[in-house]
């Protein structure tokens, strides 16, 4: 076949819709999970603002606390809270899939890998709460 090398067919790729992730729950869940990162960043920004207010002095810190009581900030923090919980749960549940540990020729059950993560989560949260609430 003469010339066949020159006439390469164009690669055919269907263009996926920009909103492909809206169609099915697992896809939407995936995008929501990925979007949790935005709320993680928001938390860091808020923490940095708090540290900044703290080092400036009591008056600035009071002003910062006032800002935290703003309904818009509260609403944003409620949404953020759900997203970071979603991140935590999906992250811990993913751990057994990321770490395929084998013991005695068998794969260690997922619960034994995810479980300790949840236990650590509760323990660490309790420790942080204790540090901040001891009065």
């Amino acid at each position, binding site marked *: 076949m003469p010339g066949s090398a020159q006439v390469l067919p164009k690669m055919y790729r269907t263009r*996926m819709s*920009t909103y492909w*992730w809206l169609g099915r729950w697992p896809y939407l869940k995936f*995008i929501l999970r*990925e*979007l*949790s*990162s*935005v709320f*993680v*960043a928001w*938390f*860091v920004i*808020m*923490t*940095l603002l*708090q*540290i*900044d207010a*703290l*080092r400036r002095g*009591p008056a600035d*810190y*009071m002003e910062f*606390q006032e800002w*935290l*009581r703003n309904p818009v*900030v*509260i609403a944003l*923090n*409620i949404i*953020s*809270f759900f997203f*970071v*919980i979603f*991140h*935590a749960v999906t*992250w*811990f549940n993913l751990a057994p899939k990321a770490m395929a540990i084998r013991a005695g020729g068998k794969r260690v059950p997922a619960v034994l890998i995810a479980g300790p993560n949840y236990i*650590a*989560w509760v323990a*660490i*949260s309790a420790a*942080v*709460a204790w*540090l*901040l*609430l001891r*009065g």
Partner: protein
Amino acid sequence: MSKRSNEPFLWLLFSAGGVVAAMLIPIQLFLFGLAFPLGWLDGPGYQSLLELVRHPLTRLYLFALCTLSLFHFAHRFRYTLYDGLQIKHLNELINTFCYGGAILGTAVTAYLLWIIP
């Protein structure tokens, strides 16, 4: 010789940040973002919080929490835009925004934690 990819390193930061964010952010966000402002619980006073943050271990803790979380965000958000919106032609800009933001955030965090009186 082919150029080494820094993808594994970025993934490591993403993964470490994912653990830190999952373990530490929910409780802190709940307390500082909701429970204290809404008066559900009494938060620490100015002096005691300042003393806590001044402690070298707390500074180290906050540094790790903030910077790793930012790199977690950078990596994940980059792929959210990449997969979700499929805007591959803006890759350079997105990478600069995401990782640049994380690097800038790291510098700001270090500076703030350094200058606390």
